[in-house]
């Protein structure tokens, strides 16, 4: 224990320690409450009718009342939207991680003229507000003939996701020791095998970070599907759920049920990956 810590506990004693730790606990608990409350309310409201939501918004609902969820299944293309969202998000993520990691690997591991410029080129993408360019984008997609297809969304999401991914991955790949690569080269591994068998397993935490960074905004995106997708059978979840938001009436219960179902996959993925995610965030700090 350091001298200052000793002095601190000597002066304040047990009460001081309890007070400080207690305060931290209170702040953390309050924070947890603030973070979780909207999610809990969303789940509660998914089991309520419109009047119930407005009369007793915080009351425990009757969890056996599955009418909202049934309505989602029967009256909308929920499953279709879910599959569309999965296709668009999955394809985008796959492309972002594959292209981003390969680009970052080349920038970080090979010395070539202009590597700094290429990295700057990617990072410059971070500063571009894509939504401001929506009209040129629309014209571009029209000329490419991909309006009203999922390809339009994938192209935009990949462009959106690459800057951060390349940035995160380049930084991480640079921290891997050169001697590992040399050792693999002595062992007779080709460049592709060095990347695949040696480097990729080591950058997995960074890929998880980049993945989560991208999956949430893509899954939840409402704006680009609204612009580029017209056919109902191509709509993604956030867009599809607006069916329940009428100009004059909105069926909040059904909307919340849809939101709950739509958020569930992301929350699950996050929980499954969170261990890797946290490992990745602290990897640089402890080594």
């Amino acid at each position, binding site marked *: 224990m350091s001298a200052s810590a000793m002095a601190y506990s000597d002066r304040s004693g047990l009460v001081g320690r309890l007070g400080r730790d207690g305060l931290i606990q209170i702040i953390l608990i309050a924070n947890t409450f603030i973070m979780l409350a909207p999610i809990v309310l969303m789940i509660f409201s998914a089991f309520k009718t419109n009047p119930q939501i407005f009369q007793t918004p915080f009351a425990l609902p009757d969890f056996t009342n599955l009418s909202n969820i049934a309505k989602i299944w029967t009256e909308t293309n929920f499953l279709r939207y879910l599959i569309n969202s999965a296709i668009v998000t999955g394809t985008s993520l796959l492309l972002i991680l594959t292209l981003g990691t390969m680009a970052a690997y080349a920038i970080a591991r090979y010395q070539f003229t202009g590597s700094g410029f290429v990295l700057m080129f990617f990072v410059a993408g971070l500063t571009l507000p894509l939504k401001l360019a929506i009209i040129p984008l629309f014209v571009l997609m029209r000329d490419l003939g991909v309006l009203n297809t999922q390809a339009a969304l994938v192209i935009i999401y990949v462009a959106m996701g690459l800057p951060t991914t390349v940035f995160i991955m380049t930084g991480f790949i640079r921290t891997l*020791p050169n*001697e*590992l690569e*040399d*050792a*693999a*080269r*002595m*062992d*007779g*591994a080709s460049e592709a*095998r060095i990347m695949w*068998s*040696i480097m990729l*397993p*080591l950058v997995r935490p960074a890929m998880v970070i980049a993945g989560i960074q991208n999956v949430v905004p893509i899954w939840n995106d409402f704006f680009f599907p609204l612009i580029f997708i017209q056919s109902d059978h191509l709509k993604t979840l956030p867009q599809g759920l607006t069916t329940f938001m009428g100009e004059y009436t909105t069926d909040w219960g059904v909307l919340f049920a849809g939101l709950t179902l739509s958020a569930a996959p992301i929350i699950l993925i996050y929980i499954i990956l969170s261990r890797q995610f946290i490992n990745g965030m602290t990897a640089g700090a402890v080594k």
Partner: protein
Amino acid sequence: MAQLSLRGIRKRFKALEVLHGIDLEISHGELIVFVGPSGCGKSTLLRLIAGLDPISDGDFLLNGRRMNDVAPSRRGIAMVFQSYALYPHMDVYENMAFGARLMGLTKAEVEARIADAARMLRLEPLMQRKPRELSGGQRQRVAIGRALVRKPELLLLDEPLSNLDAALRSDVRLEIAKLHRDIGGTTIYVTHDQVEAMTLADRIVVMNQGRIEQFGTPRELYETPANTFVATFIGSPRMALLPVTRDGSQLGLAGSGAVDAGMQIAGDERELTLGVRPDGLILRPANAATGLAAKVVYTEYLGDNAYVYARLSEGTLVSIRCSPDTRPAPEEDVRIDLVPGKAHVFNRTSGERLPA
């Protein structure tokens, strides 16, 4: 079988030349140590031999075959890295199997080789462990094992002991020497520690600023150093260099008197550099007729002998080995004389050794 020829090897990084023409012939079965201060180019030379960096100029031949443009894995060379460079996500077995599988060996052959290496290096109980679960010495053995599995003709070791603590270092040093004899191949070992070099090597390459200063057996380097750099680099405590003026066989040192060289010195320059090691000097009392006048600064007691550090009147600090019983006290005036035949004489300007 591995017989190496390096002919006029140069290495440039952009405009900066770090190796200025290295010529070296190494025969089969030798344990060669590259030694030199940091930045002398010894690790760079090792990387050129391994094929990890391209050779800018000159030829590297292995068993008579030019290797300049051959891929590292096809040179029949294995390397142990300073940081060991074990693959962190693979266990010990996988670390050793990775290279062997890439050689296109059969599964049985891979397993047999790994079993051999594991037995030789006592790694059997560790095969399922990840590198982070191993101690420094164990990692070191795995790194060597990974190299051995490839059955290299030439084994390269880059400062393999620098990450180990002092107690482990001498153990591993012995093990490496034994391993080299057991395998019977050629080994090149890089270190900045002259003690490691002296104890391990069949022959030592002393390097400085991208050049070879001397190539020879430890004994040759110690007894007949080619120049003042090798003379002061090899041996501990290091050799003292004194600027002396020749007068017949007498070597005079400004303000301290003169000593008899006790040998013939070639050439006719008057200004020379006299090199003396602690075991080449003897202490005489202050009123002795011969010897250089000096004042004792401090003494080191080492049990079986002692070192006396004395300052000559022109300012050079010399160390003298003496019996622990006859140790003088600090501040005492003494005279220092040469042991016949143990003096080294160098050209003052070039630093080259003058033949006796």
